């Protein structure tokens, strides 16, 4: 075997592809196989393509690009795989390998660099984005833009997404996440809260409510300043080096506080954080610290459930369905706690939708870059949602939340169905948040 091929094999994680016995058990679990109906868009098919490249049978790596780009990365295939193939690792390394060899056009390169190196990792940039959105809304530009039909002319269907972005929070309010929030009553745990980048810019309200709920169940909550984006979007786009840098900065930042758990409220971020140990496994200096960090990482639902759950007030009877985040289900393997928390609320009728574990098609920025593929998956999902008769869709990840809102718009269900984050829902049922989602939460 020549040196070049050997190096490519190492890059592609070729050894891991050999674990696949091609049994096909992943086929029914894969959303893109179901919607696109081709082996090329199945987990088994994608693994095979990477393997063929590793064996030199496919010479031009760009052949892999489209099939891999169309993968949502939901990793449902890992959950059903009888032989434990590490699909996520194969996908990530193959994407990194393609990215490394790819000649991006100058504007593409500039945009990637801006997004991955300047925007997501910068709290300042994300803050600016949040502020800009608030200004955009409050100054009437939004109304004007919507009225003028300008939104329909935006590229990449951005107009549709604009309509579902949550109401912005004022800069004054946004600055108000306290560094330390004391537990109500007896302290059970001390937790460090991971704010996330998109979560903090677009869903600051959910972050505020998360801190309140954690305090409510008996946690001292610490929010440290120098934390940073988790790096998930980078890893999924093949920017592994950038991703590792971010991981190290987070590990360093959180090492400064002595917390029982590092808590996040976004399924996708959480999945990245619990895999920091995989990400840095080959880095002798960081492997051990990454393991410790990953071991402390929890989704907020786990900690709330561990502390006994949220005591809801007797509200109106409501039918609710829970849209599972793929990364919570398939990577973090957190499935019981959100259900337990919802089922523990009085007058909440939880109805599971068909194919509950199937991805909604949001998948990071997949719904932006693979709009048509994403919408086909969303339409399937929304049918299952409608069949439940639920008026509230509860999610646990910002991407899923936005996608569900988009689904509600597409199906013209806005009058009677809403989508909320689990944290918002719990806060509302506990009387911490009243009916108006933009209302100021009680201190």
């Amino acid at each position, binding site marked *: 075997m020549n040196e070049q091929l050997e190096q490519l094999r190492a890059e592609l994680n070729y050894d891991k592809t*050999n*674990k696949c*016995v*091609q*049994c*096909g*058990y992943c*086929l*029914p679990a894969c959303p893109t196989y179901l919607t696109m*109906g*081709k*082996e*090329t868009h*199945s987990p088994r*098919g994608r693994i*095979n*393509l990477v393997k*063929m490249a590793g064996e030199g*049978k*496919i010479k031009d790596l760009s*052949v*892999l690009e*489209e*099939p891999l780009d169309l993968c949502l990365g939901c990793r449902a295939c890992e959950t059903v795989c*009888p*032989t*434990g193939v590490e699909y996520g690792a194969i996908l990530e390394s193959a994407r990194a390998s393609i990215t490394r060899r790819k000649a991006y056009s100058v504007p593409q390169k500039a945009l990637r660099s801006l997004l991955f190196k300047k925007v997501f990792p910068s709290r300042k940039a994300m803050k600016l984005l949040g502020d800009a959105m608030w200004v955009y809304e409050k100054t009437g530009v939004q109304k004007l833009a919507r009225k003028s039909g300008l939104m329909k002319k935006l590229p990449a269907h951005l107009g549709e997404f604009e309509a579902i972005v949550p109401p912005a929070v004022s800069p004054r309010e946004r600055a108000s996440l306290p560094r330390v929030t004391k537990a109500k009553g007896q302290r059970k745990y001390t937790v460090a809260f991971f704010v996330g980048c998109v979560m903090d810019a677009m869903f600051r309200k959910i972050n505020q409510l998360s801190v309140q709920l954690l305090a409510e169940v008996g946690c001292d909550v610490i929010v440290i300043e120098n934390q940073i984006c988790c790096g998930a979007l980078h890893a999924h786009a093949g920017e592994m080096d950038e991703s590792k840098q971010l991981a190290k900065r987070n590990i360093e930042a959180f090492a400064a506080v002595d917390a029982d758990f590092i808590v996040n409220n976004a399924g996708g971020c959480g999945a990245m954080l619990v895999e920091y140990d995989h990400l840095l496994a080959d880095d002798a200096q960081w492997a051990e610290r990454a393991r410790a960090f990953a071991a402390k990482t929890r989704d907020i639902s786990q900690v709330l459930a561990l502390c006994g759950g949220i005591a809801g007030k007797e509200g109106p009877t409501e039918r609710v369905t829970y849209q599972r985040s793929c990364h919570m289900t398939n990577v973090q393997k957190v499935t019981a706690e959100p259900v337990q928390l919802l089922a523990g609320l009085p007058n909440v009728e939880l109805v599971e939708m068909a194919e509950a574990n199937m991805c909604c098609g949001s998948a990071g920025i997949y719904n932006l870059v693979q709009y048509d593929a994403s919408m086909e998956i969303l339409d399937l999902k929304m049918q299952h949602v409608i069949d439940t008769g639920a008026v509230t869709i509860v999610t646990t990840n910002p991407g899923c939340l936005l996608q569900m809102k988009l689904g509600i718009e597409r199906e013209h269900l806005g009058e009677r169905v809403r989508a909320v984050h689990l944290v918002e829902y719990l806060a509302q049922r506990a009387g911490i948040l009243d009916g108006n989602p933009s209302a100021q939460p009680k201190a």
Partner: protein
Amino acid sequence: MTEAQIAAIRAIVKTGRVLTEEYDRFSYAFDASFGTYLPDVVIQTKDVAELAELVKLANREKIPVYPRGQATSLSGGPLPVHGGMVIDLSVMDDLLEIDEEDLVAIVSPGVLTAAIHKAAEEKGLMYPPDPSSSHVSTIGGNLAENSGGPRGLKYGVTKDYVIGLEVITPQGEIIRTGGRTVKNVTGYDLTKLIVGSEGTLGIITKAILRLIPKPPASETVMAIFDDLVDAGRAISRILTSGILPSKMELMDQASMVAVENYQPSGLPKDAEALILIELDGHPMAVRDEAEQVSRVCREIGAREVRVPQTAKEKEDMWKARKLVSPAIVRVKPTKISEDATVPRSKIPEMCRRLQAIKEKYGIHLVVFGHVGDGNLHPNIIADKSDREEMQRVEKAVAEIFEAAVELGGTLSGEHGIGLMKAPFMEMELGAAGLDMMKRIKQAWDPHNIMNPGKIFPEPGQKLVLSE
């Protein structure tokens, strides 16, 4: 294939897809067995008339045609070994009709077998064949390979439930065989000939399947033995005592150890064998039979007999059996799953031979399977990248087949011959027996376009597992 031929295909396929991109061709170049064989073109269409036209074109131009379901085959059934067209029939999944009065299901080939199970059960009926891959394998694939599964012991295999077919012949004609009646003696039984012919005689485009009433209850018994031979004796004694279990599964010590190391399930690591028995029928009858089975096992010398008391306990017992496959690949990545089958009375002897083969070649061999009907699954766990090991494995596999045939058994109980076992056909059938089969193939398909390279060995063909 030529550009003109591809253009001719595109002209025929008006409702589906014609795939020629490199990534698509590679995606249809494999199944769950070994090897990569690139087709020239992959076709997806739901239209039977279009398919018939395609076959006519293939017959005229002598282009190989490879029908394919979801390619879960373990014997190489759908591999396009000579290039040509792959016809992806998994897209033909629209027809699934249950007729309660005639007790039949009418299905198109792309329907998943599990979907048939579900639809039948919703009406209180049962489609008995249940290959382990039923939630992912298509009925068309099951029909082509005559699939089995653990319930074969009591209910038989796929062919026992097929009463009618619609088939595209290698000449591109659409024919019907059999019908909707259980009794049908009109002429040669082409239905039974086509089922299990592994796609070499035509493309199945519709099937009429026989259904039976769903048994109302089931009971499970697990018996643990210190001696594998005792387990074999218990199996024979149960089967001659007037009880016919619906399933009877065996796990050897290596399987139990693998499961316990993978996901502890309460199996004894020091016992030599375990048998898991399922009885189905009337609730009172199965309870009584479970007691009888337990008694027989104890009399023969079972170390322990467990009868699950709750649905959860029962589910856990069967889960332990299902964990064998995933558990054993933790040891090494490559799994060669065989299905050599012997008469029931020869199971203990076959187990002894397998142990001898394991030692002789120094291979990692695990035995489990549907022991009630003699359908053992000797699985060899190896590493494909280790060429020297794979050569030892090839020799061991050949010896496993020899042992099965010598004991009056067969090369394949349920996976089919395909590409993998073609070199051993003469050993089981004899030269004249194999020649009769070849003559049938020649009469049906003189240009040898339907799934060529399968069942019948090509000159000098040998078992190859290393690439």
